[in-house]
């Protein structure tokens, strides 16, 4: 009996070894596949024409096309919308001009057959929207062009190798460790082995659930890691490493960054402060008023209060935009501030209300009876009690305002007012990102991380103290 069991564990060991090797093997194959796919996918770049609705794409044709009639069609490859324009061109010059919308695909047809186009906008001049991009036809020359303009960007197969290497190494180490552990366990009695097996089942569940969370976090943080890593190089393009450099940080702090970015940062801070301060004042007063209302009125106003929270950004933005259009108000900083107060105040109200219900309702009246004016009573009696709720409401309003895009987009008007969000949006639409955004958000992330860690450590300490008492 004992012998059979030994035999079985031996077989298990063998199987584990084979499993580890198989996994490694499959990862290698998988990788290889991916690098091939990757090499092929370089051809499938979509058109990035520029910011506005109508922009020019200049495309250079091969010499064999000269004098031939070329039919260029521009179409949305979207699933639902298919509005395609066909433009006929007879050209003497090898350059053709066609009108296209941002993100459209261009196909060219000649008598000799069909040529799918890989028209693509250079990321090197993202700001200059009038400069058209010349892209050579044919895969070889296109890839060559890519290599010339972007360096090694086209070949990124190694990312998968690193990914597989890390996972493969982890699997290998893990399986070696288990095999060693199990061979030591053979010396134990069968009963002990059984209990160990049970424990291991529980442990395995624990490990799997932990691994799930960590993998999820890995995926969640991958794009952010990209921003953080590439903030330490001076390359114009996210994803192109040109050596370690702190130049972007220096630019950010010395004001050498893009002028648009600087004013966007300033605008964001101004708007966030105005919106947060006014919504905190308005919201706190409202919360005190609502708390003292009759139940029916309270319900009605609470419902009204929840409307801006339920409404998605686009609806709040559009409805306010239409209001300002209908009233004939010119949109700018003031309208953006009003819009931000609209969606910030409900959160302030909701963070102040719980503090009110914890307060002794009679202290305010007592202060009035003792001869305080309402303002004095508010300042000396109520504010000290409401302070924490107001502060959290203020911080929440600040965050919401800084992070907002949808509402700002519709209420900023056409006067060139940009906040960080709208700046990033128009930047991304042009096909590139201002490089100084990378260090900026790295810093924001670090500040937030430290703040959260400090808060967490403090609350942990508090909890421990309370436990001791």
């Amino acid at each position, binding site marked *: 009996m004992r012998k059979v069991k030994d035999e079985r564990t031996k077989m298990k060991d063998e199987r584990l070894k084979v499993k580890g090797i198989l996994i490694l093997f499959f990862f290698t194959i998988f990788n290889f596949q*991916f690098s091939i*796919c990757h*090499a092929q*996918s370089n051809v499938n770049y*979509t058109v990035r024409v520029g910011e506005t609705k109508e922009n020019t794409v200049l495309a250079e044709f091969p010499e064999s096309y000269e004098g031939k009639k070329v039919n260029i069609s521009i179409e*949305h490859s*979207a*699933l*639902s*919308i298919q*509005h395609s324009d066909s433009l006929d061109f007879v050209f003497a010059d090898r350059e053709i001009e066609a009108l296209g919308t941002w*993100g459209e695909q261009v196909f060219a047809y000649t008598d000799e057959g069909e040529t799918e186009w890989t028209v693509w906008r250079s990321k090197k001049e993202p700001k200059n929207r009038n400069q058209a991009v010349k892209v050579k036809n044919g895969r070889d020359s296109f890839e060559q062009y890519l290599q010339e303009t972007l360096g090694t960007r086209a070949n990124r197969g190694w*990312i998968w190798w690193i990914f597989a290497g890390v996972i493969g190494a982890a699997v290998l180490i893990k399986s070696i460790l288990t095999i060693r552990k199990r061979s030591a366990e053979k010396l134990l009695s069968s009963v002990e082995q059984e209990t160990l097996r049970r424990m291991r089942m529980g442990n395995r569940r624990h490990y799997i*659930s932990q691994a799930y*969370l960590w993998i*999820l976090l890995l*995926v*969640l*943080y991958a*794009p*952010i890691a*990209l921003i953080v890593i590439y903030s330490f190089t001076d390359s114009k393009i*996210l*994803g192109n490493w040109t050596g370690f450099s702190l130049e972007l940080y220096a630019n950010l702090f010395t004001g050498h960054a893009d002028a648009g970015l600087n004013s966007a940062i300033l605008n964001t801070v101004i708007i966030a402060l105005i919106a947060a301060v006014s919504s905190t004042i*308005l919201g706190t*007063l*409202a919360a005190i*008023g609502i*708390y*003292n209302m009759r139940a029916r009125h309270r319900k009605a*106003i609470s419902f*009204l209060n929840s*409307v*801006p929270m339920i409404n*998605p*950004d*686009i*609806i709040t933005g*559009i*409805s306010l*935009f*239409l*209001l300002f*259009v*209908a009233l004939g108000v010119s949109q700018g900083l003031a309208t953006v501030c*009003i819009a931000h*107060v*609209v969606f910030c105040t409900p959160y302030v*109200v909701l963070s102040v209300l719980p503090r009110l219900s914890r307060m002794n309702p009679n202290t305010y009246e007592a202060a*009035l009876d003792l001869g305080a004016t309402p303002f004095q009573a508010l300042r000396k009696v109520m504010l000290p009690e409401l302070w924490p709720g107001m502060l959290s409401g203020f911080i*929440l309003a600040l965050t919401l305002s800084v992070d907002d*895009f*949808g509402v700002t987009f519709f209420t900023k008007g056409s006067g060139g007012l940009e906040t960080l*969000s709208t700046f*990033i*949006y128009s930047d*991304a639409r042009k096909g590139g*990102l201002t490089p100084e955004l990378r260090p900026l*958000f790295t810093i924001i*992330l670090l500040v937030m991380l430290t703040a959260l860690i400090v808060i967490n450590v403090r609350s942990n300490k508090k909890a421990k103290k309370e436990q001791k008492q």
Partner: protein
Amino acid sequence: MSKLIQIFSSRRTWAWPYVVFLVLFVVLPLIIVGVYALTDINGDFTLRNFAKFFSHSAAIQTFLYSVMIAVINTVICLLIGYPAAYIMAQAEFKTPAVMAMLFILPMWINFLLRTVATVELFNMCGLPLGEGALLFGLCYDYLPFMIYPIYNTLQKMDNSLVEAAQDLGASRWQSFWKVIVPLSMPGVYSGIVMVFMPTVSTFAIAELLTHNNIKLFGSLIQDYITTTDLLNYGAVLSLVLLIIIGLTSFFGDHGGSGEEKGGVV
């Protein structure tokens, strides 16, 4: 003067400024959307805008497609988020607070920047930008909204109920489906609402993630609203979106049992 003081010492009046503000900037704008939808460029009453919507098959298709994408995204978020929230809320897990924090932290980085970084990540790995990228990006942006409410309700759940079920002979699986899942439903409902509503109305993310190859309803509204001549038709489209949002929040109110709702922040 003394009368003024009297008015202000009654604390009910302190809410008045906010009530006026709400009526001016929340109720009135929504009414104006309706007014614009029912008028033409000259301001005359017309139903033509609505008629245009029902005969505009591209718009209806985009609308249905957006709803479908939003439903798929909500389901994906639920399938990924529920296990994560469940694991975090388990008592055996040592650092739930830190984990919850780590899931919330990405939200502090501007979502457009995160989206652009996602696009770059896809480019780097040689993956094509399309529907897959769109779903990945949407799920990536809204997953915390699903995890957090579910985590909140699961954490507040009375664990002795699960133990009681197991004492009464329920298997792990049974106690999960019959006790834990029903008890976490309020969190699930608010998670669904919080993911579905922004997804169905999203307008910039889809544009960036697919290089404008896939158009969602939000982008369509944006296109019409920003074109002066088509503003009235854009208002109709906004009304359609508003109806969907209303229905969803109705579902959220009736699905979750009032006070037990979990919320972000």
